[in-house]
């Protein structure tokens, strides 16, 4: 990997101070200088190293999808909207708790529970939130733990900090459920020469989540606090278009907030993210628009394919073909995000020759901007 090696001071200058931080958590938990607090990465003291792991693994420093695809899948990124794809399916959890508790079809919870049960992994790094809706990574070792983490609140979470912590425990095969930026960081961790091999080599499974944006914790929760009692919230959801609402469920009610109001709290870095479907994961999972109770499942790697095969055979998940129009819609959405992000990047840098963190060939750039 030819990523430039720079230090924490450049990380602060190029990423944190410019509000490009995605709060993936990859830089947290391995040194005393970077910590995650209330939805922010805080630089506690000045680290004087000229080359740091933090800079190397950050998904907002030098990202070359071709190179990363080579490292993760052995081939450069193929043409297309969704990155490397073996198969795109619909999936949902088999009969069981996961189907009820999962955000859509419960596929992710079912897959992680199955992987733990079967010993494919011995630890799952997931995301959960506290009473104040502050999300953080959570390492679990069994199905009950997985189910405790089911669901999402759309607030950015430093989940990878938990991976960093878990990698120095007795866990040997760690599975991670991650958003696009986190999947990107994990891929960079695999390639970084500054990474401790015995730790990153424990990464056995990456399940990516489709992601279009995430929210700034403090602002969003401050807003939410004015609308409802945080402690009462059981689930939040964004139903498919054209609803344009953000639903906040409690045991007794559902508050519908205009999505436009919530969008004000989107992290600015999400506007610069080109990857909707977590292209560097073993499996990528999202909602299957228009098919309630089902997920869309992209099978990418051999590891991913194996897991899906076993989980289907076991009945842990069910799969079905994804209707063609849904696939086309997914591709369109993914491409749109790529194009939009690219334009935003150029707007921010002021030049199509400076794509900030992204490395893209001229031809690819031209095609996307056309």
């Amino acid at each position, binding site marked *: 990997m030819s990523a430039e090696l720079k230090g924490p001071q450049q990380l602060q200058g190029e990423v944190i101070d410019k509000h490009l931080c995605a709060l993936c958590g990859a830089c947290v938990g391995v040194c005393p200088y970077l910590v995650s607090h209330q939805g922010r990465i805080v630089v506690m003291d000045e680290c004087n*190293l000229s080359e740091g792991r*933090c800079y190397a693994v950050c998904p907002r420093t030098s990202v070359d999808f071709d190179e990363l695809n080579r490292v993760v899948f052995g081939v450069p990124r193929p043409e297309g909207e969704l990155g490397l794809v073996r198969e795109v399916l619909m999936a949902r959890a088999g009969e069981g708790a996961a189907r009820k508790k999962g955000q859509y079809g419960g596929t992710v919870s079912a897959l992680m529970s199955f992987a733990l049960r079967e010993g494919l992994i011995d630890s799952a790094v997931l995301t959960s939130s506290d009473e104040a809706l502050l999300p953080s990574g959570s390492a679990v070792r069994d199905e009950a733990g997985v189910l405790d983490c089911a669901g999402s609140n759309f607030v950015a979470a430093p989940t990878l900090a938990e991976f960093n912590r878990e990698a120095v425990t007795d866990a040997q095969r760690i599975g991670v459920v991650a958003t696009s930026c986190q999947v990107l960081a994990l891929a960079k961790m695999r390639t970084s020469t500054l990474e401790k091999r015995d730790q990153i080599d424990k990464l056995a499974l990456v399940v990516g989540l489709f992601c279009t944006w995430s929210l700034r914790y403090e602002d969003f929760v401050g807003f939410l606090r004015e609308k409802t009692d945080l402690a009462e919230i059981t689930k939040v959801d964004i139903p498919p278009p054209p609803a344009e609402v953000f639903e906040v469920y409690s045991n007794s009610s559902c508050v519908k907030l205009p999505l436009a109001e919530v969008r004000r709290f989107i992290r600015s870095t999400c506007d610069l993210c080109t990857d909707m479907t977590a292209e560097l994961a073993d499996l990528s999972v999202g909602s299957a628009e228009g098919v309630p109770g089902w997920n869309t499942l992209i099978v990418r790697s051999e590891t991913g394919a194996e897991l899906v095969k076993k989980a289907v055979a076991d009945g842990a998940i069910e799969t079905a073909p994804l209707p063609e129009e849904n696939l086309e819609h997914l591709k369109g959405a993914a491409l749109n995000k790529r194009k939009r992000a690219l334009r935003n990047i150029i707007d921010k840098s002021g030049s199509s020759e400076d794509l900030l963190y992204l490395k893209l060939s001229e031809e690819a750039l031209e095609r996307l901007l056309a």
Partner: protein
Amino acid sequence: MSIATGKAGTSELYMGNEAIARGALEAGVGFAAAYPGTPSSEVIATLAEVAKEGEIYAEWSVNEKVAMEVAAAASFAGVRAIVAMKQNGINVASDFLMNLNLTGTRAGLVLAACDDPSALSSTNEQDSRPFAKWADLPLLEPGTFQEAKDMTRWAFEISEEIRNACMLRTVTRVSHARGDVELGELIPPSKEARFTATSPVDFTPYPVPFKHHQMIAKLEKARELFESSPFNRYVGPERPELLVVTSGACWLYSLEAVKALRAGDRVGILKLGTTWPLPEKFVQKHLARTERVLVVEEVAPFLEGNLKELVGGHLADAGQLTFYGKRSGHIPDSGELNPDLVAKALGSVLDLEVEGVSPEYVQKAQQLTGSHTHMRAIGFCAGCPHRASFWSIKNALKLDGRGGFVTGDIGCYTMALGPTGYFQVKTVQAMGSGVGLACGFGNLARTGFEQPVVSVCGDSTFFHAAIPALLNGIYNHSNFTLMILDNSATAMTGFQPHPGIGKTATGETTPAVDIEALCRAMGVRVEVTDPFDLEGTTEKLLELLRDDGGVRVLISKRTCGLVRARQGEPDYRVHIDPEKCRGDACGCARLCTRVFQCPGLIWDAETDRAKIDEVICSGCGVCADVCPAGAIINEAI
């Protein structure tokens, strides 16, 4: 041997401040008070030590104004009293002083003001002498240790004769250096203290114009006494090419400089021990010897201005006179003087080649001193609770993320404006001023101010000057967190007790004022933390920062590391596991030696690992909680 046992006629090696204390005993002092402040602290500390055998009373007052007041009460009751303070203390005492001067005194009252040119231990290098002029009080300036003692004794006599306080001004090099002092007889203090007012306005400044007039008459009387003072003298040729006029320690620098330049036949030195009011006739007589005058003095051009004023008042008699000094640029406008600087000034006026100290000499001196002392940046001692407090303050403000900052003042914790306090203290002025500033910052919300404000002050400073500011903040709905760094000591000036300690200056037990209860009684939220609990302290402060609105108090309580070291065994034997230490590697980058910076931690360049300096380490164990690798190990003793 104590200063109260030295026999008359013998000679003893005394520190300047001890000489002042002895001089007071030889004058029959019965009452002594001060708030500690470098370089003045030893005056009253020495008297407190001998209070029992000398049958005198000595106290550490809560601040300089109160010290001045208690001492004045003794004077009013017919007991000779001395009060000592550093230059900043004069400012605190000045409100009372500017009324006392009109009121006048009874028994001798001496104010020893110890100045700190170059501000070696101060926030300013203020000159106290203009205060004497401002307050119309007589001023004496000793140059030697003998003079320090003898002038103190004489100051009581002057005070009693003119019935007003007399100021004695020293500088660090007189107060803190040592020299031989020939002793005089000790006089026991008066045992007939009684307050008797002869008129309703006797002990008041009323009627002010009358008392003002009286005060000036008293000063004129002092001037007459000064005309024949043996502390003023001239040494040099009958008609010197250049007359050096000087006082105090600068007299010694001048003597040395003239000698070094072998200019004794060209330069005369007029040494003044009584610098306000000037003995005009005496001074004029000597000014008439020459046409050129170099005024050698530190800090303010006080003598220079007064001499020019004197000459200006007698222009008809004055010959052609050229003045050299601070105004002409021959003497530096700031900082301490030394013989070299004076020689340079002399050389420039006399057109002489001046050889400074040779580089070889400097090198040799450095080698000699360097072999005994280790070069180290100014900062907190090993085991200092302030380091731990500022580590947590830094972390809490970083985590809070709203640009919060710390207002401070003078005390050991001032060093937090440097690296060992992580550059946290952003303002330093007078004692307690950090709290006053916080009151102001905390009421700027209407003008768009959103930053959290943390004010720090020590326990002794809290009593000295922070309480009124805290009250002000509470009363006016200000918004800040006051962190009282309670190390149960007036550490910077030498561990003098204060109202929170439970001991008086003379070692008697007294009720300790409970800072926590006092703050609670003011009606504010008060939390207490142990600074060595880094996580707990950070969390508490973070929570208080978020608890916007009103004044909050966090008392960070842990005894000064040096006091603990004197009290007994350390808590832990600390060592470093070199296997675990990450050293320079990514994941640490020498956090303990590079950022945390306790002098007990050193970097071993040979092994590329941190190491404990067992001589310095106080065994507080705080660094174990800072190490990200768990490589610093606290072994219980």
